[in-house]
């Protein structure tokens, strides 16, 4: 496959591992922010390839994992209403809310459809004109513009039975919270590739300049991740803190301004609660008043319980990089992919699910 196979080339992988070892022997702690990077790292055994002085820790870049229990409960509350069709990306289905999950609700008769794109939800609304279709909008800056595009399209098409529950989150505020966490002390960020396709380099600049944490935006193949690590190690060795792009085939420094403009037209930033972090100012997206007709929260009463996290679950600490899955007493014993307790075990990109599947 073009743009895939050449970034899995074993010769390049060996070369990069050697280069990383030669560049520095300083102990460094790097965080891969994005869940898709976590999967690449585990699937390819990258932690085992790296010299022992380089530690990789997983971050909060899994939208399903960081969605608060209250957010999941709101989605479930909508699914329990008569006549509503819920359209959702598949990985949200099994996330436990405070009482139940969307999957359990579906087995009890709720009409919940898994879709591949927000346009699929829009097409459901066209197909079932006498029903209300609610799309569960979840994701970071990569996904939010696609949902904004569909909301704009729904307005143009004068569709009145389609709305979105916006649970979107913005990554830079979470990274800012992480660099200010005294227990963590991250030496560098492997920044998310496809979020950066949209946002470009600008939002990372304060992390490098104000907080002195080097940032490298990375692609998702093993060569990409190792090259990003090599670039971070080089910066750290030379005492630099800059924002660099390794994933240049898919990320430009200015990002995708058209996608951002759509996102900014349809949504506006709001404070948002992240699992493990609490409320972070300006870290969520709500639907702007101009598009209020497509806001499921305005259309339906979706007050939900503010339920507690499951007792013993360490997802919150794991999402902030403070704990690893084996530190959790539930991991593998009670919490498994078949019967997850916390969200990090549900999504295939969750740190616990990646550990469960790949780490021995």
């Amino acid at each position: 496959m073009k743009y895939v196979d050449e970034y899995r080339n074993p010769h390049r992988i060996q070369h990069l591992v050697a280069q990383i070892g030669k560049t520095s022997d300083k102990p460094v702690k790097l965080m891969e922010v994005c869940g898709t990077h976590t999967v690449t790292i585990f699937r390819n055994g990258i932690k085992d390839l790296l010299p022992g002085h380089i530690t990789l820790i997983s971050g909060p870049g899994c939208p399903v994992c960081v969605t608060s229990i209250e957010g999941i409960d709101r989605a479930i509350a909508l699914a329990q209403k008569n006549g509503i069709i819920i359209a959702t990306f598949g990985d949200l289905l099994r996330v436990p809310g405070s009482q139940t999950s969307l999957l359990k609700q579906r087995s009890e008769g709720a009409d919940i459809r898994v879709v591949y794109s927000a346009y699929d939800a829009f097409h459901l609304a066209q197909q079932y004109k006498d029903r209300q279709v609610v799309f569960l909008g979840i994701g970071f800056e990569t996904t939010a513009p696609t949902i904004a595009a569909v909301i704009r399209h729904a307005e143009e098409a004068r569709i009145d039975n389609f709305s979105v529950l916006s649970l979107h989150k913005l990554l830079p505020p979470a990274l800012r919270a992480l660099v200010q966490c005294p227990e963590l002390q991250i030496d560098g960020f492997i920044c998310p590739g496809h979020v950066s396709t949209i946002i470009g380099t600008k939002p990372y600049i304060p992390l490098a300049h104000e907080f002195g944490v080097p940032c490298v935006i990375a692609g998702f193949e093993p060569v990409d991740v190792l090259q990003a690590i090599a670039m971070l190690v080089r910066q750290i060795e030379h005492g630099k803190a800059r924002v660099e792009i390794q994933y240049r085939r898919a990320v430009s420094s200015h990002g995708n301004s058209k996608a951002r403009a759509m996102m900014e037209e349809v949504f506006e930033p709001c404070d948002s609660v992240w699992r493990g972090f609490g409320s972070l100012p300006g870290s969520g997206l709500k639907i702007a008043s101009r598009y209020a007709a497509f806001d499921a929260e305005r259309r339906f009463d979706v007050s939900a319980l503010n339920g507690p996290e499951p007792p013993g679950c360490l997802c919150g600490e794991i999402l902030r990089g403070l704990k690893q899955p084996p530190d959790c007493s539930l991991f593998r014993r009670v919490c498994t992919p078949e019967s997850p307790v916390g969200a990090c075990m549900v999504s295939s990109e969750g740190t616990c699910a990646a550990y469960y599947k790949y780490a021995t």
Partner: protein
Amino acid sequence: MCLGIPMQIREIDGNLAKAVLSGTTRLVYLDVLDEEARVGDYVIVHAGFAIHKIDEREARETLDLFKEAGFLSPDSETHTGHEVR
């Protein structure tokens, strides 16, 4: 969740394209793409949308760094598998 895969555009009709990856064809929306897409272009596809046109020159330059380092012989390039054409 922010998974994006490189697919090649085969047909375009308005804001909708047909794109292929390893023989699988998918409908891909072009609404958020900030450049004009043409048949034959490779795009990063996320949740049914093309979000970026892959920059061939940048892709080549990233890989050329390895050649400059003198590590890869031209032959090692031929073992990287098949391409979608």
